[in-house]
């Protein structure tokens, strides 16, 4: 899902930066409004960002091979509005340290991964209607958040790539490409959903306050 440098047109990359800049500005406004002293939340949000960065390095088995998880759903669930700047920072480090994802495409990737994360966070907050501490609603909403964050992101990435790559494909080939790219991410999306649910269940038992940060 991380789009590298050099393959999408610069207009798309710049557009991505504009969109990401706007989203970052909006979320920062929300953050400033919510916290009297937002800098109080920075150590926590940053440490959790570092956790997600480290966790994204773990090999998760998906027989016959293994994958790296994006964990954008989990970031959204735990950090709420902070998820967008956190993902922006996380992507920055991934691009700089491992050249995973691009620098010109930082804005685009932040939108593709960060915006669905915000959606997942919002979805997870619905748990207040089903009993905040009941395992089943938490697990289901967490699964939904984890799954959607990746599914929506992958689908959007597929759309973007298919319509912007300088290649002369006909309409049927384009549709096929979008479907193929999206379907390829389905197992990962399911895996992320399950993983997110498992982590949320763990936190519910051990430290439920972590799920209340953005309530």
């Amino acid at each position, binding site marked *: 899902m991380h789009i590298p440098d050099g393959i999408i047109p610069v207009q798309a990359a710049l557009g991505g930066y504009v969109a990401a800049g706007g989203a970052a500005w909006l979320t920062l406004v929300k953050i400033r409004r919510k916290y009297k002293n937002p800098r109080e939340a920075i150590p926590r949000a940053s440490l959790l960002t570092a956790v997600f960065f480290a966790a994204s390095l773990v090999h998760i088995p998906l027989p016959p091979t293994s994958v790296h998880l994006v964990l954008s759903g989990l970031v959204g669930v735990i950090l709420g509005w902070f998820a967008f700047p956190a993902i922006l920072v996380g992507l920055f480090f991934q691009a700089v340290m491992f050249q995973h994802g691009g620098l010109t495409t930082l804005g685009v990737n932040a939108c593709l991964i960060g915006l669905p994360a915000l959606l997942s966070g919002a979805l997870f907050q619905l748990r207040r209607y089903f009993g905040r501490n009941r395992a089943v609603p938490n697990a289901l909403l967490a699964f939904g958040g984890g799954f959607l964050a990746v599914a929506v992101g992958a689908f959007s990435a597929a759309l973007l790539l298919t319509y912007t790559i300088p290649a002369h494909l006909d309409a049927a080939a384009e549709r096929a490409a979008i479907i193929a790219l999206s379907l390829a991410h389905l197992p990962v999306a399911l895996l992320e959903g399950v993983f997110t649910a498992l982590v949320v269940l*763990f936190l519910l*038992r*051990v*430290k439920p306050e972590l799920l209340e940060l953005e309530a």
Partner: protein
Amino acid sequence: MSSIFSARGLTFAYPGRGHVLDKVNFDLAAGERVGLIGPNGAGKTTFFLLACGIIKPLAGELQIAGQPVVPGQFYPEVGMVFQHTADQLICPSVREDIAFGPQNMGLPQEEVARRVEEAARITGIEGLLERPPHRLSGGEQRLVALAGVLAMEPRLLILDEPTSDLDLRYRRRLINLLAAMPEKAMLIASHDLEFILEVCTRVVLLEGGRFQADGSPDAVMSDGSLMEKHGLEVPHSLTGTWHRHRGPAPGRRDLPG
């Protein structure tokens, strides 16, 4: 006396750095309790990781209970408790964490449950079984980590700085615990030299890639020049004198009331 662990010509170096271990030979008999002392960075933890098969030596042979150590293979005969126990405890409850090892050994449910109860009983933490490990004190966490390892019923126990974050009560509890397990061989790395004196039957000093000394705790640790040469000190109980760092001690001041 059968050898529970042996190393021959063990050599290891981290890339870009000098040899941490240089053709080291070592034998540990069943029931022997060896204290491993040496300055920080001498390679004690590296030695342990090699012994468990976690990292691969550059040269040399290792054997556990007669079988050669193949890096990457699981050896339930060896149980290691890390210096930072927080790295070791992962499950939401103490009971599940202790069960982790036996479950990975493929044991049936009843056996796993029995081992959990037994390990909790030995370490005295039955009351903590349903608690989340993260909320426990440092001492309690160390006992939980130890229980998790004991539940695998290892023949060799490796302890890396086991008293580093224990208050005196838990430290004493650990000493009594270890004394009550004479059948287990132990390899203990520690800066707490008094602890080593109480628990171990043999002491080995590691520095510069080699074992610089190997003998009874009294013999090795009361050799002042040897200890100081390797950045250590003779433990107080062996000096026979009271070592004062400051001026003459003031008389005791009785507080009013």
